């Protein structure tokens, strides 16, 4: 499978392609440049004054850049707490970035979110949340839940037409229109997740951010959900950002995979390359830790060492305390993401050719 923009060069990352060039050289739908989000986790002002504590910042996402072409899927993987969800929330505008920008279809998304065109943009960017229980209002009927975006964006106002469209949406995710009158708690986990997919699809978005959409589901339901997502991508040319812990799922759905560690991308490659030829030592460890179905009884090698404290990240390369290849440079100097043979990776050892 060849992705038109999947071979990124350094250039578009630094300089966005001006909109007028788009015709000649199709711009990726999603361009994320140096996106960062810092949380102020300092104690309140008075505490700091009295206890002489400094301000404290948590760099949840610290300069992430990637792009996704129309109709493609980028998967983000990485340890718990590495900032995947924060990226997702940044993209849909739940957080404003502290640095960097997110250009959607040639338009600066965060500027738009803040302005009147925000509604238009929100229609085109939707999100599927991780928890199928929590993301549906327990007191609303499915009908109202799925219709809410339609009403909100004045896409449809006529009750009959709304009902028609909701039924259609439910059918498209494999639910029956008769389920409209039920409440969320009357559905199974997989069905609930489909409801939230139906809601996300209601406005015919172009870009779907999926934050661990299947981690609560068992394999058979997971298969159903993933299939629906793929079908939709085929039919409607949807673009996905797909976040998951499950590498097997990632491998199944994605075109490109980004590996995050402590708020930064450490490796970004197309799927096949990443799974067959992982470059970054963390990626390698992660792949080693996947349980394999076919060699029963074999022990895995877990990632060594403890997860570092994001409030006080290690100097240099954040991974160095757990890295078997770390040397003095790794401890002192933070590696940048560089393109090496079509793969972008941030590792001194790889760049130096040590591994």
């Amino acid at each position, binding site marked *: 499978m060849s992705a038109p923009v999947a071979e990124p060069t350094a250039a578009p990352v630094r300089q966005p392609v001006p909109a007028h060039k788009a015709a000649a050289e199709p711009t990726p739908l999603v361009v994320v440049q140096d996106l960062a989000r810092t949380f102020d986790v300092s104690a309140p002002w008075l505490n700091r004054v009295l206890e002489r504590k400094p301000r404290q910042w948590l760099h949840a996402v610290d300069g992430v850049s990637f792009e996704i072409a129309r109709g493609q899927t980028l998967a983000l993987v990485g*340890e*718990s707490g590495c900032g995947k969800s924060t990226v997702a929330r940044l993209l849909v505008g739940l957080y404003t970035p502290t640095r960097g920008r997110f250009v959607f279809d040639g338009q600066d998304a965060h500027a738009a979110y803040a302005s009147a065109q925000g509604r238009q943009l929100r229609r085109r960017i939707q999100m599927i949340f991780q928890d199928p229980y929590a993301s549906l209002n327990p007191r609303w009927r499915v009908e109202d839940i799925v219709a809410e975006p339609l009403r909100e964006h004045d896409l449809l106002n006529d009750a009959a037409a709304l009902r028609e469209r909701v039924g259609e949406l439910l059918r498209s995710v494999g639910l029956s229109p008769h389920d409209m009158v039920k409440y969320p708690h009357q559905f*199974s*986990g*997989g*069905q609930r997740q489909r409801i939230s997919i139906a809601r996300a699809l209601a406005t015919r978005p172009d870009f779907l951010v999926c934050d661990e959409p299947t*981690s*609560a*589901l*068992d*394999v*058979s*339901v*997971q*298969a*159903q959900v*993933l*299939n629906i997502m*793929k*079908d939709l991508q085929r039919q409607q040319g949807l673009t996905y950002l797909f976040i998951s*812990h*499950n*590498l*097997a*799922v990632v*491998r*199944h759905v994605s075109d490109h995979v980004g590996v995050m560690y402590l708020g930064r991308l450490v490796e970004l490659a197309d799927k096949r390359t990443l*799974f067959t030829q992982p470059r970054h030592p963390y990626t390698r*460890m*992660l792949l080693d*830790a*996947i*349980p*394999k*179905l*076919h*060699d*029963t*009884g*074999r*022990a*895995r*090698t*877990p*990632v060594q060492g*403890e*997860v570092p404290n994001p409030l006080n990240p290690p100097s240099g390369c954040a991974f160095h305390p757990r890295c078997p290849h770390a040397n003095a440079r790794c401890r002192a100097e933070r590696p940048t993401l560089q393109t090496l043979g079509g793969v972008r990776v941030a590792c001194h050892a790889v760049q130096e050719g040590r591994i």
Partner: protein
Amino acid sequence: MDKLLEVKDLVVEFPTRRGVLRALDGVSFDIAPGEVLGVVGESGAGKSLTGAAIIGLLEPPGRIAGGEIRLQGERIDHLPPAQMRRIRGRRIGAIFQDPLTSLNPLYTIGRQLTETILTHLDVTPAQARQRAIELLKDTGIPAAEERIDHYPHQFSGGMRQRVVIALALAAEPQLVVADEPTTALDVSIQAQIITLLKRICRERGAAVMLVTHDMGVIAETCDRVAVMYAGRVVEIGPVHEVIHRPAHPYTAGLMRCIPDMEAERERLHQIDGAMPRLNEIPRGCAFHPRCDKVMLRCHDQRPNLMPAGATHAACWLHEAATTAAAEIAR
């Protein structure tokens, strides 16, 4: 092979406003000492309920309505609460899904550990504390002497799950019921936990009933697997057999649903439809509306577990084999 735990025809019911829901309907299996039994199946199939029934912690109004549970030959399903309490923790340990919520946030982990130890073992508080520290060390918590006085929220998820395991193992139980112990964790921590669990079983000779959705975990950890569907065990057998030569169509479907690391498919295999709700389980085989090998009799006759190759499966497809085997036996 002596049986550590025997579950026979276990029935669990929930009386509700629209009649009695039969959540477990004749579940039978057994576990030998030192064995790891995996339990898989669709969400709501009754995996957790089985575990809860074994440790005697069904939440009312749920109740055991039939069948028996034996621990080393002794019936434990209707023991008075006081006696059951002595078994719980002491002879059967339990690990629940969520490490974040399984620990009381208001007490140090040391207190929770020593409390458990003191309840079951005849030791002094000082000895209990010593033992607690050893347990933490065993489960791979660095600087155990210091961390024993920390509160749960001061631990990371993976460490908390290890503490939960330490708690479950505190009184050296013979059986550990682990209900989705790794679902909330990412792969790297999951790997740590599974490794730990396996090591401890090996070293202490405890048996484990491991409930999980993750076939990879099952494959690498278990000796045997039970597959549940709609409140029944539909297949049970050695792990390799079940994964590679599933005898029940549901198991087969389930295995095919797993996204494969090696092979790439444009579309995952899926079992169409959904598991029936408990109050509308069809007559006959509960799986028949979704089964691609459905036969006429599946509509109104319910199959019981029967030998199917190296495993046992509840499917009429294997009846011929059963009768054949029975004839041989006769």
